[in-house]
């Protein structure tokens, strides 16, 4: 049966093709000039340029963090280009018809049709290709409901007050090495604003793709859900197969006002590198949301890609009775390394958080859960429940759990549980005895292991996530 398990390690990345578009890519390296260039390219107002430059200065004083259970050579920022955009985007397209057909074809290949009529019913999509947003669908329909969904570069011009007010309000400029870098050089990303009391009429979704070689992607997403509003947002990512490592350092900020709810789902499938650990995306992401009174933020992530994943979507439960949730599946194979988890900071009274994390390690990979649950001295009646399970496939991989639990309130209740197991021979044998092939059996058992998380994903994504795991399991059975 160990053959089945071996095959788990040997599957090919499905989204690894390169799109042949002419791009404008600036020379590698980071300096004030580069930042001025990016800002000028986007025609940004002075305040934003100043904001970027300030971040750059802060960043120059910072060191790359080394506390994560990750082992990789120091990232050489001199080799990375901080801006790349398809040439044809110079005069931004007004509608889909003006988008380069090559790009549309790219997304068709990825299974993301951009023509509105073909788009999954009820999902509006913003597409970010290398450093720029290339298209946003269903804009009009959303506008009717008063929902703003557009590239952040556009929002800077059209809704400067909103952007100015909330940009950096959840993840401060100084937050950490990668977030600060993002502040200085962020390229594009999505901006969402849901007005008071509005339930967003459809799922919003952004697809990120890194295409160009030697570029970094630094997108920035800002979602503001005003009082009593509701939104569900999905994010997907892919990149071509390349031998060198590419850096992705994104920042996502969620502002969830009183009684509002944000559901943020990610299916992260950046190129993970090949079976020898060559190439792959270095994914260093800062995601954080702040909940005001009675608000709720729910993070769901399925992480199967990237050579390195460093990511801790967090919730600051500022308002009383607010709720934070984190559901995660992280699958690592070959030489992939993941150090991911969440932070739940309970500030308000009766705040609640739930953490369900499922880590699956195979091949020679390393998979770590790192989490923090903090109960402040004000967090009367707060509760947390954490369940953290690891599944090991093969004897070359490793699984780790680092949950930090800090409490300063006697009326706060925290429960944490973690288990580690492997796909048991008995379970596999039962499946085989019932005629189910070994490959299918492993895939079923792994999917079963992740069930609690998958059920949190919106329908379309749940299917996609399930398939992603299956693709990962495909391979020869000896």
């Amino acid at each position: 049966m160990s053959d089945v398990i071996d095959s788990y390690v040997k599957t090919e990345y499905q989204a690894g093709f390169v799109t042949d578009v002419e791009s404008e890519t600036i020379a590698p390296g980071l300096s004030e000039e580069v930042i001025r260039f990016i800002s000028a390219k986007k025609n940004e107002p002075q305040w934003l340029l100043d904001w970027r430059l300030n971040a750059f200065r802060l960043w120059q004083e910072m060191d790359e963090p080394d506390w994560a259970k990750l082992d990789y050579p120091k990232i050489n920022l001199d080799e990375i280009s901080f801006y790349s955009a398809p040439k044809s985007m110079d005069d931004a397209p007004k509608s889909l018809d003006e988008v380069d057909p090559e790009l549309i074809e790219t997304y068709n290949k990825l299974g993301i049709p951009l023509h509105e009529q073909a788009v999954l019913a009820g999902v509006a999509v913003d597409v970010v290709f290398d450093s720029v947003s290339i298209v946003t669908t269903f804009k009009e329909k959303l506008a009717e409901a008063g929902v703003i969904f557009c590239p952040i570069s556009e929002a800077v011009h059209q809704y400067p007050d909103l952007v100015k007010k909330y940009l950096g309000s959840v993840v401060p400029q100084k937050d950490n090495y990668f977030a600060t870098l993002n502040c200085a050089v962020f390229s594009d990303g999505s901006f969402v604003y849901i007005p008071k009391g509005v339930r967003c009429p459809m799922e919003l979704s952004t697809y990120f793709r890194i295409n160009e070689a030697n570029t970094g992607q630094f997108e920035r997403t800002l979602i503001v859900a005003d009082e009593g509003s509701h939104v569900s947002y999905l994010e997907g990512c892919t990149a071509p197969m390349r031998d060198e490592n590419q850096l992705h350092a994104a920042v996502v900020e969620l502002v969830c006002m009183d009684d509002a709810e944000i559901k943020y789902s990610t299916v992260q499938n950046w190129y993970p590198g090949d079976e020898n650990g060559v190439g792959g995306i270095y994914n260093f992401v800062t995601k954080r949301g702040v909940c005001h009174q009675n608000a709720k933020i729910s993070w769901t992530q399925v992480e199967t890609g990237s050579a390195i994943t460093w990511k801790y979507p967090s919730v600051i439960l500022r308002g009383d009775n607010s709720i934070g949730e984190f559901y995660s599946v992280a699958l690592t194979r070959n030489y992939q390394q993941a150090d991911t988890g969440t932070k739940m900071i309970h500030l308000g009274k009766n705040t609640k958080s739930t953490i369900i994390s499922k880590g699956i390690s195979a091949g020679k990979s390393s998979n770590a859960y790192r989490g923090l649950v903090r109960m402040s001295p004000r967090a009367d009646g707060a509760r947390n429940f954490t369940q953290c399970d690891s599944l090991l496939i093969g004897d070359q991989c490793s699984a780790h759990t680092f949950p930090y639990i800090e409490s300063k309130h006697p009326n706060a209740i925290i429960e944490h549980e973690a288990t580690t197991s492997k796909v048991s021979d008995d379970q596999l044998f039962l499946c085989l005895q019932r005629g189910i092939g070994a490959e299918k059996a492993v895939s079923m058992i792994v999917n079963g292991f992740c069930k609690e998380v998958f059920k949190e994903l919106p329908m379309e994504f749940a299917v996609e996530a399930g398939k992603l795991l299956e693709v990962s399991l495909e391979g020869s059975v000896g």
Partner: protein
Amino acid sequence: MKTSFQVDNQFLSAALKNELAQNAESQTPENNWLTKIRSYSYADFLKQNLPTRKVEHWKYNELFFLTQAEFSSSPLASRTQSEISDLTLALKNAFTVVFINGQYSPQHSSDLIDSHVSATPFSQANTKQIELITSSLSSAQQSTNLLIQLNTSLSQDGLLIEVESNKKIGKPIYLFHLNTSADENQICANQTLVSCGTGSECQLIEHFVSEKCEATQLALQQSVVHLQENSQCNHYRLNLEASTSMQVSRALFLLEKDSSLNSFYYSEGSQLNKTDIDIHHRGKNSESNLTGIYLPSETQCIDYHTNIEHQIANCTSREVFRGIIADSAKATFNGKIHIFKDAQKSDAQLSNKNLLLTNQAEINTKPELEIYADDVVCAHGATVAKIDDKAIYYMQTRGINETRAKKILSIGFINELLDKVENEALSHYLKDQVQICLSDIK
């Protein structure tokens, strides 16, 4: 990011520094192994700076206080036998070994003739014993705690306790440590090595007390217990120092094939009690069972860092720690299970539960798993909660007042663990002690 204070050995008095420096220079050719170990540790210690909270091991208890004070070496103090007897546990029939300010005090200790147990100061060890000591101490050197390195440098001697092979020792071996009061800040060191011979069985009780005083007594201590093949050891450690004392200690248990360890920790807290416990499963089929209770109150700090290493296949470990944190006390628990590559069929479970009694109390807990083998069963759990309101209410309806109900429930919370204490005299003593300690619950 600043991760250390630039102070190196400044908190040591001039005399102490001098003594340490002299030791490093004096290399008498014969019997210099101890001198060597001391000077190496001191050199290692000097290479480091005092860690701040940025350093994981000290995240919740930094050593900043050391920059604010100066410590001199504890003097040789003497106490009468009756003074000692007032403080020792009333254990019927024990082999008692007494340490005052870290130093072995033979005149207060039991005669071990014909007992199948021996106590040998390191300085008097024979060649075979030296080999045993150096090999065990070299395993102990890998501590990440720089104060333990300092302990080795400061220990002018140490005590080796050997339990004869294939002997079942009926009486407990009772190691009693007293720190005497002082007028100025003092630091003392102790290292003890217990070797449980092949196929032997013994009971080991370590008991720490200190006399109350204004000055700070910083006690450094390291115990290494080496369980040879097929041996069994029931170990208890009681930290009952005065609230002004500080102890930074480490215990290392080395478990060879088929050996079995039960270890029980009890601490009521002192100004700072930082305890590192390392259990290394080095031989197949070894078993460990680690239990701990901590009950800090006032402004005390208790910090346990436990690290259980399954270095080899087919070993079992169980760990349960529970704490009740009162007043403005602070407790830190870090429990790591580390399964080495190829340590298949490892079975490791850890549980940590805490009750916070007040708004000012603080608990930081981190159960960790580091796993490099797939065919293993590992689990940990941690909870932080208060005393169950429903249970209090239920008891009230049965006529028990709230304070009493809380007390009963708190004791219930740790009773299960106290039941693991097999030594009867000790069990009675601890049950009374818990009653006293929790009598202030409101």
